[in-house]
């Protein structure tokens, strides 16, 4: 089991001139610390127009800053929207390769298609076509990285013979992933031989069938890249404290704030009937699970039922138990959301990360333990 962190870069209102600056630099500090503590990956989303919820519209820039400040942690696009109306696939390949070079070969290339009308409408992107656009780009980008001269005649974009540069440092290319919020996409990931990047905050039970289906189908895959990336990332919230009550207090604030911000943008399936978004996805799941939740006040006083199985919220012992649930269903990596709307003060977020690295990580990640021992020796 490996561990990572996941950034949405949510910026709460009221905004000041420095609000976004503060959130970005808090996140960079968290990423630096995660690198030092032995976390394996740092991921950043690509979202547009999702005010307050995510101000991470240029993740390649943010991730480059992370790469420049860190040494070993892997740098993940979680995900890049590889649809031509958002990002021309050639630009996707170029930017990702440049980031792979600058990070010394640490890039994980997650792909996706967006699940909100807010974003698709903003880029005048037809929701019916996003799945096939994603598929076409996904098949082309590895070729751009590996072929000296690339050309493409597709349904959604075409390129005459050109040398797409730079090439990534990792050979043949960085690992490929797709954001998965539905069982259907997990199967599609497996069919294409790419990693299953969980981006919906579900319980281990909800993930279990998805993981099984992914493992089964990927054995027969036809990889779109040069190699098969058989890995499953789960995602959940993280807040660790020595005191269980304190952990649940802050953890419930985190979950509530994230869910509330997410509820206010417009999922495709909630407004635009299309077979391309049959499964409601992350937003619907969040809304459904919050339907019977209590008020923020109640959530703060107990946890109001807002903390679900599998969330890494509690004392180190509690969190170890929760992560074992993920391990049991075959998840390879867990990625954590650390904050939402800056509802947890930065010093508490950093402290939670340290507690996790000190008490939880060694139970799962021998590599992280070795890194920590080596740092301790160096300090002596």
């Amino acid at each position, binding site marked *: 089991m490996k561990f990572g962190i996941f950034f949405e870069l949510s910026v709460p209102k009221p905004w000041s001139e420095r609000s976004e600056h503060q959130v970005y630099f808090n996140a960079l500090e968290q990423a630096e610390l995660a690198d030092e503590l032995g976390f394996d990956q740092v991921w950043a989303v690509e979202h547009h*127009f*999702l*005010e307050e919820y995510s101000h991470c519209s240029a993740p390649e820039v943010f991730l480059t800053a992370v790469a420049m400040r860190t040494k070993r942690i892997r740098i993940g696009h979680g995900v890049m929207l590889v649809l031509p109306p958002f990002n021309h696939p050639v630009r996707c390949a170029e930017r990702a390769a440049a980031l792979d070079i600058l990070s010394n070969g640490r890039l994980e290339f997650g792909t996706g298609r967006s699940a909100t*009308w*807010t974003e698709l*409408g*903003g880029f005048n992107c037809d929701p019916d076509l996003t799945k096939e656009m994603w598929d076409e780009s996904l098949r082309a980008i590895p070729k751009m990285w590996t072929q000296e001269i690339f050309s493409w005649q597709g349904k959604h974009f075409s390129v005459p013979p050109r040398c797409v540069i730079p090439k990534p440092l990792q050979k043949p290319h960085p690992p490929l992933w797709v954001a998965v919020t539905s069982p259907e996409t997990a199967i599609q990931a497996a069919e294409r031989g790419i990693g299953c990047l969980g981006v919906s905050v579900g319980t281990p039970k909800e993930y279990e069938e998805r993981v099984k289906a992914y493992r089964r189908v990927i054995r027969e895959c036809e990889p779109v890249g040069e190699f098969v990336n058989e890995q499953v990332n789960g995602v959940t919230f993280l807040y660790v404290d020595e005191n269980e009550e304190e952990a649940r207090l802050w953890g419930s604030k985190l979950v509530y704030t994230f*869910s*509330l911000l997410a*509820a*206010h*943008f*417009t999922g495709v*399936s*909630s*407004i*635009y*009937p*299309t*077979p391309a*978004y*049959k499964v409601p996805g992350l937003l619907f799941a*969040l*809304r459904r699970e*919050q*339907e019977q*939740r209590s008020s923020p006040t109640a959530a703060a006083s107990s946890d109001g039922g807002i903390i679900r199985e599998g969330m890494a919220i509690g004392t180190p012992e509690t969190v170890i138990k929760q992560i074992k649930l993920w391990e049991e269903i075959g998840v390879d990596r867990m990625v954590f959301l650390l904050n939402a709307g800056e509802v947890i003060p930065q010093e508490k977020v950093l402290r939670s990360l340290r507690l996790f690295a000190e008490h939880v990580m060694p139970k799962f990640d021998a590599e992280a333990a070795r890194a920590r021992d080596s740092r301790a020796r160096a300090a002596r």
Partner: protein
Amino acid sequence: MPDYGQLAAEQLPHTVPVVAPPYPPPPWPLPGARLLKVTYETEKDVAIRWLPPSLGRPIPPYAHVIVGHYPESPIGPFSLAVQTLGCRSRFLVRAYSLQAVTDSPTALIALREVWGFPCLLGKVAVEEKGGDVEARVEVAGRTVCVAALRQGAPIDVEVVRFDPYLNLRLVPSIQDGQPPPHVSLAQIDPYYEFKHALRGRAEVRFPRPSEGAPWHLVPFLSPVIAVWTEADTELPFARFVMPY
């Protein structure tokens, strides 16, 4: 001759006495309904201005014009056109009713008294021609809204959804200028069994704005989508009552 009172109907304070209603109690089965839902993006300031404090505006702000023709109901055939604002009740997607027009006096009473639709009496006409469906909403001789689906194509009914309505549950003050002594929101979740559906380009116009039926105050900024469907539906009792 006795001295009769002189209070004109125009001067009456608002009351809603529900005794001997001229309609049966819910649920109302409404088989064979034909429904047009036209969704469009509107202005942020408008959404914030017209939503109650307990509801959040979505990003981007959007509105629906929902026009239903109900050929069979417990009170006979009627039509209902509703303009709603897309909103969020905490985590949940809802449609807050702003304007409504029906063409049946009995439906008017029931829709107001039982379900809280802010109904006026008027005309609601729906015309289906080829792949186009156009609805016209008229109040006091003025066409306050035209909503249309253009170039419709069949769509799987599994992906069609209508959000629950949130309607005002209001006991008006009988004193001029005083706030209502009670106001809350009633959530109405009609049941739908869709038979077939068309999806097409959305178009909304407000040809003759009316102060009494101000549909134009939720302006059309850009189209989202329009859906035309036939469904067996049912208007139930309010599912929840929530704070205003």
